[in-house]
């Protein structure tokens, strides 16, 4: 991909993120990602340099001289995004495939975090950790993150979500937010998810395509899995086959949903037919109303 292309793409992503940031102006992003906020620390004598707004009038009247409230500085919030770059995301039936949806979601989240002065980092994973970026602040950092995301050529052929969760967990020294962008076609990660969810705020964003749920009514075709080369003959005109296919993935989705909710992980599903930015905005606004 040409560098020019990247800038074009990044500009596009920024525009879509702009909508999200504007939409979140009322503070929904913050309330969804509950940072510790301003915390009352102690009361001390008022100094003329202090802001008069923070004078604690109750204490002042009781003690006869002005006292001001001192706040502990707000701890910075860290956002760690786990991005699945495995080949299973490359398939899709629409002009936008799952990988592009992931990229848009990623950029939106990065810009939203930067707009609210948070630190943001990323873990790109396939069957290994392809790249890891430490959480940092700033627009430059955001742009470089997005550039990394677009320019990454994954070498692995799998989705080791468990490893990514462990890495994300280790990278966040303090309590933070973990966002998982994946199709969740992985296994053996529930234990690690439990560990991460115990300490951090976790949002699982499942990116899907309609072919991940329903096999189209078609004919005979040989299928091959992009990750492990597992091959299967599919008979698209057989209702029995389509039902088995539907059941398999419906069960997988139900299982994913139930297991996430059990661990207090919030979930969001974004299909390739959806507008990812709109989905995010709607999600944050909805979450914002419910504390």
């Amino acid at each position, binding site marked *: 991909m040409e560098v020019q292309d990247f800038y074009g793409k990044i500009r596009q992503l920024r525009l879509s993120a702009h909508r999200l940031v504007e939409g979140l102006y009322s503070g929904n992003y913050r309330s969804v990602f509950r940072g510790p906020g301003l915390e009352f620390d102690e009361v001390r004598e008022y100094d003329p340099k202090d802001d008069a707004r923070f004078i604690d009038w109750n204490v002042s009247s009781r003690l006869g001289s002005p006292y001001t409230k001192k706040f502990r500085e707000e701890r910075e919030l860290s956002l760690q995004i786990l991005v699945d770059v*495995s*080949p*299973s995301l*490359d*398939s899709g039936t629409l002009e936008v495939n799952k990988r592009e949806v992931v990229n848009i979601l990623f950029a939106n989240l990065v810009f939203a975090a930067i707009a609210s002065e948070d630190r943001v980092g990323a873990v790109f994973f396939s*069957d290994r950790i392809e790249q890891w970026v430490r959480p940092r602040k700033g627009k430059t950092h955001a742009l470089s993150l997005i550039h990394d995301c677009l320019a990454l050529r994954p070498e692995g052929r*799998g*989705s*080791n*979500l468990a490893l990514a969760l462990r890495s994300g967990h280790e990278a966040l020294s303090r309590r933070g937010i973990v966002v998982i962008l994946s*199709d969740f*076609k*992985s*296994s*053996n990660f529930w234990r690690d998810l439990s560990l991460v969810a115990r300490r951090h705020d976790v949002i699982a964003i499942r990116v899907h395509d309609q*072919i*991940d749920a329903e096999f189209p009514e*078609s*004919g*005979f*075709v*040989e*299928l*091959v*899995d*992009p*990750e*492990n*080369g*597992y*091959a*299967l*003959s*599919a*008979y*698209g*005109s*057989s209702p*029995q*086959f389509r039902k*088995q*296919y539907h059941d*398999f*993935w419906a069960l*997988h989705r139900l299982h994913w949903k139930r297991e996430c909710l059990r661990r207090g992980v919030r979930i969001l599903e974004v299909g390739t037919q959806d507008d990812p930015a709109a989905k995010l905005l709607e999600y944050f606004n909805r979450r914002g109303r419910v504390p």
Partner: protein
Amino acid sequence: MWTFSDPAYLLLLLTIPFLVFFRHFWKGRGSRLVLPLTLWEGQRFATKNPYLSFLNFLSASFFWLSLTLILFALAGPSLTRQKKIFLNSGTDVMIVLDESPSMGARDFPPQSRFEAAKVVIERFIKSLQNDPVGLVTFGQDAVLNVPLTTDYRFFQTDLRKRKLMELGDGTALGMGIAVAAEHLRTANGQNKVMIVLTDGDNNAGEIQPGTAVGLLPSLGIHYYLVGIGTPGKVPLEVTDPTSGLTYFGTLEGGFHENYLKSLANPPYGVYFSANSSGSLDSIFQSIDSREMVAHRVKLQVLNVPLYQDFVPLALGFLTLFLLVRKVFLKELL
């Protein structure tokens, strides 16, 4: 015999296993749709459809079969046959067989004279090649059963159908010789031979054996008189084909050797006496060596190309393959 005009093309058959491997078993083979089917290191979506697998296998077999047939056709298969062509006509042999009741005498236990004669004639016929052979039988009258022919199978089936007393209760030896002579006369073989198998009686017919035999040298016919039987008392068993009754009895003096000897006229006519089936065999062997002319034979090699059979067959299988794949299975890629 199978031959190939361009057998080098058969070497291409060796590539078929590789092609099968690359089409059906190789990991990086194409014409497949990439679709996530598994959870990484977890469950995989699996389904079994024996009907589908069978059709898939069947159609693939059709395709490879068709390819194999086309390669065979390319190699130019042909069927090579050698055909013998006789350049000269052989010896005309007319066999005259006695069907009178006295031939039912059991001189050749357990066979009767008649049965022994039939067995030996059959064996004789088998040694012939391109020699026309005919059959005349006589009883009360004489009849041409098989005109001179090289269709030995027809001769054999007809000979097996012959029964004693078919032509009535009598022995028209002279008539038999005359009928055979008449048919040999018009034949155009190099050599004309008449073999008469009888026990030597003549009690019916308009022509005396002596008269008939007298005609033969002038017609260029060599004749062999084979006297079947032994003098003395012989048990007799005859089934009348019209009434179906079987008669048993003893035959005495039913073998007129001297009369037959008197009919011989060397070198045109020779008399042989056969009193056992072994001697009957040796008589035929000696006739064979005396009379049979050398055959001049040309071998013709016939090459019948067979690719016309292979190509439609291959196309048929290819059509079946496409039919199953595209119509029944509605293959996408």
